[in-house]
């Protein structure tokens, strides 16, 4: 086996500037696409619940097509297909002094469209978990359908939506690697170019794998805290894996070593 441990540790702990730029691109495209997809997906989910047949149909077609075709096909169609047919071409634009390549714009649009179809389905099923009694309680207080959604249904439904939304964001982060086919300089493409320049393919892809793992791990931890937030909002307990039990062990350990004065005070003294 050929393995260069020096190259590996160097790439892992002090990655080159191009690799870091790729990492930043991966994070930025993921976060921006997910954020946009949340809004678009919510809109599509609302359309799917509309009174109007036309809106429901549009929403149904949207989800059907975007979930039923591969992201890779959508991406290439959007970036290369459309311009080849002379319909639309993404060109480099400059926003606040930062120039954004056409491929990056196409990537964000494609990821947002694709992701929003999944978000719409998660929102739809999340809304269905809210009992009918909540709608009736809003109705008898004179709330409109929109304010019932805004103040009663959505805040509760979000709790059930967080785990599946977190799951699809995890997938989205890893799916950014296919953006390399249209030349977006994200982490996978950067890894590939380092690999072809150094021939250390095994080492550098192990490093890339570890960085993807780091990203999804960080997200998992963030997701725990988001889940806890929404559980506490409805007065339910939430155990953060590892952390909660560790904190408990530390606390009880300390209490065992040095009892607090209050605990030593006999009960009779406290009650006059």
């Amino acid at each position, binding site marked *: 086996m050929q393995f260069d441990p020096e190259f590996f540790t160097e790439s892992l702990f002090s990655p080159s500037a191009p690799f870091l730029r790729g990492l930043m691109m991966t994070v930025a495209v993921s976060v921006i696409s997910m954020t946009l997809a949340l809004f678009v997906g919510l809109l599509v989910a609302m359309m799917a619940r509309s009174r109007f047949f036309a809106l429901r149909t549009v929403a149904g077609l949207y989800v059907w097509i975007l979930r039923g075709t591969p992201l890779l096909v959508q991406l290439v169609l959007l970036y290369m297909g459309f311009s080849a047919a002379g319909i639309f071409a993404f060109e480099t634009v400059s926003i606040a002094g930062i120039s954004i390549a056409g491929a990056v714009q196409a990537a964000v649009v494609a990821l947002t469209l694709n992701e929003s179809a999944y978000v719409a389905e998660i929102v739809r099923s999340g809304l269905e978990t809210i*009992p009918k009694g909540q709608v009736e*309680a809003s*109705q*008898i207080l004179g709330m409109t359908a929109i304010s019932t959604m805004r*103040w*009663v249904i959505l805040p509760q439904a979000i709790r059930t939506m967080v785990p599946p939304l977190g799951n699809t964001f995890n997938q989205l982060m890893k799916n950014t690697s296919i953006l390399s086919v249209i030349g977006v300089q994200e982490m996978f493409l950067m890894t590939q170019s380092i690999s072809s320049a150094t021939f250390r393919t095994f080492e550098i892809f192990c490093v890339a794998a570890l960085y993807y793992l780091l990203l999804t791990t960080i997200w998992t931890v963030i997701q725990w805290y988001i889940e806890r937030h929404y559980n506490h909002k409805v007065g*339910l307990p939430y155990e953060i894996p590892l952390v909660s039990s560790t904190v408990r062990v530390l606390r009880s350990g300390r209490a065992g070593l040095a009892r607090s004065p209050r605990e030593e005070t006999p009960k009779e003294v406290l009650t006059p």
Partner: protein
Amino acid sequence: MTALLSEKTISGPVMYAKEITKTYGDKTVLHGVSAQVLEGQVLTLVGPSGSGKTTLLRTFNRLEEPTSGEILLDSKPLGKRSRSDGGYGDDVQQLRLDQQRIGFVFQSFNLFPHMSAAENVWHAPVRVKRENKAEAVGRAHELLGRVGLADQADQKPATLSGGQQQRVAIARALAMRPRLLLFDEPTSALDPEMTSEVLRTIQGLAEEGVTMVIVTHEMAFARRVSDRVVVMEAGRILEEGTAEQIFSHPEHERTRRFLSSLE
């Protein structure tokens, strides 16, 4: 103490339900039932399960749309607006305004779980009626105090007992300053020891002259609190009268049997 209810407007029944019919498919659950409740009165609807009393109550604020018949709130058709031709037509906005004037307390409380007890109470006055928030919050705490929950104002419903949740629900209904309150089996989902605290709260409201319609299986309570009692069976009114008449001298053999079956 501030007034619990909105000012009196008209003499005559606060609410009059006229020949209410309700059918689901080919099944008729209400056969042209009429009922009324006067200012300051407590009307209770009793009867065996499946007699249609909850359905009838739910038509009173059109949570359940009657198949035919009319609901009058202060002599005006509920949720309708007068048309130029002199008749009345359904109006969504009017329905919302009218529903705000009818408090409803559910069997299963239906509190908003993501809001504290106080927020449950002030939410609709602030967001729906656009009342001043500071005043509405103050009033929410006052109302929670009235139902004996001053200490629990910041608790989420999940941390409250069933009886406490139902009392928050009563405070939430009162916060809208309703013309009348409807109760749909308010203690059926509660343990016996929590039933009494809720019944005491409702009785307190009755003593203050709050107009109420109550569907209940608690006969001793119904006897204590009611001005009028309606006994229902199979979607029809079997017998109607004062609490004394119904419980001490029921006319109908079937009323007697129903009442004795509960003892």
